[in-house]
Each structure stands twice: as C-alpha cells, then as structure tokens.
C-alpha cells in the first residue's frame, strides 16, 4: 500500500504519466473542497442545519414564538425552556428557531441582491468608462453620502413594513459600496495584458466581461459577501429597534439581541443565545467563503 503510493509519487514527479487528466468542473471543485477543506464542509453543514431548523421550527419545539407565560418571565435555561424565557415568558429557543427564518433570509437575500446589482453596475462602470461610469458612480456617491441607517429608515418609512420591503431597503443601501469595490477591481483588470489579448483575438465585450473580468472579481465578491451577511443581519436589528423592521412579538435574531439588552445583567441568556447564533452563521459563511475562494483559485490546486 505504502509502496504503491511511493511508486505513484515517483511516476508523477518523473512526468512519466502521460495522461491528460480532466478539466476543472463545478463537480470536481466541490469534491476537492470536501476532500481538502474540512472547515468549509463543517461550515456548510452548520448553515444547512440552521436552514433546516428554521424551516422545521414548529416540529422542533412545543411552544410557539409568541406564546406568553407571564408566570415564567425571565426564567433561566432549564429542561422545559432550553434557553430560558424572555420578559414576556416566551421560550427563547423557540424564538431563536423562528428568528432564524427572518435573519437567515435577511442575511442572504438582500446581500445577494445588492451584490448582483453592485457587481453588475460596478463592472459596467469600470469597463465602459466615460459617461456611463460618471453617471453610475455619482449615483453611488449620493447613496454612500447618506448614513446607511438613516437611508434605510427613510426607505422603510416610504415602503412600509414587510419582509420584501426590508430586502429592498437593505439592497438599495448596500449596492453602492459593492459597486465601488467592483469598479476599482474592473479598472485594474481591464488594463491587464490578457484582456488586451482577448480584444486582439476578437472576443466580444460581453464575453470579455463574463470570461475574463467577472471570474477574476470572484475573490473580491466572496469577501464582500462574507462581510455583508452579518452587516445585513445587524442593520435589520437596528431597523427593528427603531420600530421599522420586524415587530414583536415576531422574532428575528437582531431584534432578540436588542430586546435582551435591557436585561443583560439579570438575564444574559436573552442576548447571548441570538448573539451566538449570529456569530456561528457569520463564521460559517466566512469559512465557506474562504473554502470556495481557495478551491476556485487555480494557484492553490494540487
């Protein structure tokens, strides 16, 4: 067994193996990540677990998220209430599960949406230059000039409550910074010789964007994604705190952190549980993002 490995090694280093191998596909990349990056796999597992917990929340707990039990206010964790109860006697574990529905959606959907908008506009601005660039970037500047929470408040006032409106608001607030970063990256990439080579070859502009510029923006986009997921979750909690996001008795992690703030000394579990949930989610996305970035980078192969 060991000997066979050794022979394989020798054959490989001597270049005696004359097979072509296979091209990287999405499948081979994923298989490689499973093999080489356990942390990314575990992270993916954690995210799936959270999603399943959110979806099957009613099956996992005997309580409902708004079921009050005033006799049992601010109860510490126990067998009946795994993570204790809040100031209305509602089960924190149950609220955590239901809150995951809102918070995971808010962490992921507006982030993806704002990144899609920001990346598209940023690449367009950087690649087209001239007037297109000026118009897009001045709009982005205006967006960035407002404090983001203020902008979000104004938008929520205008649009009204509701999950869809929170998605829209967070996307509108976040796209500009994504566009800035992607534009800068595009400006750098489009001057590179391989982009010039593609132009000499006669490749169309849209293909240059899709094959040469966008794939080389992916590491940047992954980093932005992992940064924007927690920021979206927390912005939502800020909006909820101001009475503009999810309203109690409905639950979201951000809202729960805020609610628990008043009882930080007497009932720390109120804030602690959703904080840990947010942290685990953020870490999971971070590690998964790192794993995806590494596995897509040809330099780190083999």
């Amino acid at each position, binding site marked *: 067994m060991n000997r066979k490995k050794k022979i394989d090694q020798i054959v490989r280093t001597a270049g005696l193996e004359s097979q072509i191998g296979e091209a990287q596909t999405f499948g081979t990349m994923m298989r490689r990540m499973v093999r080489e990056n356990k942390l990314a796999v575990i992270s993916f597992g954690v995210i799936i677990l959270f999603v399943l917990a959110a979806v099957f929340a009613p099956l996992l707990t005997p309580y409902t998220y708004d079921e009050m039990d005033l006799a049992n206010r601010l109860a510490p964790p126990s067998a009946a209430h795994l993570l204790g109860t809040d100031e209305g006697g509602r089960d924190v574990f149950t609220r955590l599960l239901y809150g995951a529905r809102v918070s995971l959606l808010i962490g992921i959907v507006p982030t993806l949406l704002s990144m899609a908008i920001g990346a598209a506009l940023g690449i367009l601005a950087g690649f087209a230059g001239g007037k297109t660039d000026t118009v897009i970037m001045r709009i982005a500047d205006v967006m960035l000039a407002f404090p983001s929470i203020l902008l979000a408040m104004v938008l929520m006032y205008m649009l009204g409550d509701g999950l869809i409106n929170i998605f829209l608001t967070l996307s509108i607030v976040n796209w500009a910074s994504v566009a800035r970063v992607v534009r800068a990256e595009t400006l750098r990439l489009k001057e590179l*010789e391989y982009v010039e080579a593609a132009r000499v070859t006669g490749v169309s502009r849209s293909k240059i964007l899709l094959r040469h510029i966008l794939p080389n923006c992916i590491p940047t986009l992954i980093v932005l994604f992992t940064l924007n997921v927690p920021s979206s979750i927390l912005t939502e909690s800020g909006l909820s705190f101001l009475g503009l996001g999810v309203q109690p008795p409905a639950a979201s992690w951000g809202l729960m952190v805020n609610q628990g703030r008043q009882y930080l000394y007497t009932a720390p579990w109120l804030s602690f549980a959703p904080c840990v949930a947010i942290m685990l989610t953020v870490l999971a996305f971070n590690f998964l993002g790192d794993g995806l970035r590494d596995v897509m980078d040809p330099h780190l192969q083999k």
Partner: protein
Amino acid sequence: MSGILLEARNLSRDFPAGHQKVVHAVSDVSLQIGEGETLGIVGESGCGKSTLGRMLIRMIPPTSGDVLFRGKAFSEMKETEFHPIRRELQMIFQDPYASLNPRMNVRDIIAEPLETWHVCAGKEETTQRVLELMRDVGLPEEFLYRYPHQFSGGQRQRIGIARAIAADPSLIVCDEPTSALDVSVQNQILNLLRELQQARGLSYLFISHNISVVRHISDRIAVMFLGKICETGPTEKVFSAPRHPYTKFLLEAVPQPDPRKRTETTALLQGEPPSPIDPPSGCRFRTRCPHATERCAAEEPALKETAAGTEAACHMIA
C-alpha cells in the same frame, strides 16, 4: 517577397500628457510588410515601437495617417466592417505572465480564438484542434487542463503563440516576445516562430530592443528613434553597412562575446534620450549625434536611399 500584406502610411500617434502637453509617441511612420515576411523594429525603450505595433493591428487608433491591409484602408472601415480582419491580425505579448488569464486552463485559452471565429464544430473538435496546436508549438498534450501558473515563462509564451496562431492569422505582431525570457529559452521561441512562419506563411512584425534578436529573425529591419524610423532596409545590409549614426551606435553597443575581437574604443552614446513631449527641432537625433550641424537643427531629414541599398534619414549621407 510577394505582395504587400500591410502598409502604414504616415502614421502618427500623440498621447495627451497633461497640462496641454502631448507625447509624440509615433511621428509620420511609413512602412510595408510583405506576405510571409518578417519586419523587425528595433529601438530603445519609449521610442514608440509598441504603439506602432498596436496601431498596425488597429488596437490603438492613429492620430493621423492610415494603415492598409491588403490594400484596404482602416480609416474607411467601420468597426463592424473591420471585424473579419481582426482575425488576420494577431499579437504575441511581452509578458507571458500577464498575458494569460490565470483562471483559464490551457485548453480554454487556446480555444478562445477557435470559438470566437467558429473554426471548429462543437466542443470535441475544438479540443482536438487545441491538441494539434499544442503539438505545433511544442507543448505536451498532458498540459491540456493545466493552468498558466503551472508553467515556466517559455512554456507560457508557447501558449500565447498557440493562441495567436489558432485562428490562422496572416500577420502577427510580436511585441518583445522574448525579452522576459532566459537567453536559452529565447532561442527556442525564436526558432519556433520561424518554423511556424515557414509552415503557415505568416508575416511578422517583430518588435524588440535587442538588436541581436531582431537580426536573428528579420528579413528587413527598421530602426526607430523617438517615434521615427531613422534607418530601414534588408537586415544584412543594415547590419553590414549601417549608415545612420544611431544605427551605428546601436550596433557598437552590442556586447562582443569574443574578447579578441573587442575594440577598446567602443563609442557610447552620451546623455539621455530627448523627451518625446518636446522633441528637438529638425533631426530628432541631433542632440546626441556627434556629426550634427546647423542644417540638422533647421531641417528634418527624410528617408533617402543610400548606396548600400538601405534607406536612412540623415543629412550627412550623400
């Protein structure tokens, strides 16, 4: 040399340099490249060689002047009309590290021109064609799905060459294709370029600052100084009887490997090259030329035929 493939007529290109200043990168250059011919362009850094090369394949528009491909003027063609000619005019780049997309494997890089021009029907045929091209440029076929960073400079340059020849162009602008490579590898690449030329009837515009490399590969050469051609002619004639003082200096500056043939009195050019933002009046070389007279400051010399069968732009040549 059968017919003329590409012709430049009075090509000039200025670049804005801020503060209303202008860099005269290329000024009034005319040249011809024949079918299957290699024209070498030599000159020091910043003399406008690369700008000239890119204008000839319409990657940079000229400020004035025109380029004719098989008699058709670029200036009379819209981008859509020019598009089929894009395939005929390819380029090999100086930096084999920057000219290959790090996220594409060799197959996809070489297949890009084949796909762009619909050379092959279907993926399978394209891959077969890529393998043939890899064989043509001396890359083992097991490299098919590797990525650029797994290769040496010379191998990367072979990938760049395979990409350039994939869609069967008629002219390739080689922009210093060997200057980033080891000397031993330079020769392999030059020989490969020559083999491909013979097999495919390619024309080259070979740009280099290395006069020995240009001599090795070119049928004719043009020596450029500060955006202008100062001497041009068949390679051996220019080398055996250089007429323009700048050409003479260039040839003298080539290191002589045989110590017995070395002379003590190698004349070296003094001073810095003049700025292309504010070129000297008259002859552009006059500020560095040991033979300069008042006439050189007043009057710009035109390219004239010399006794040796070359053309040189110098008042001192009778």
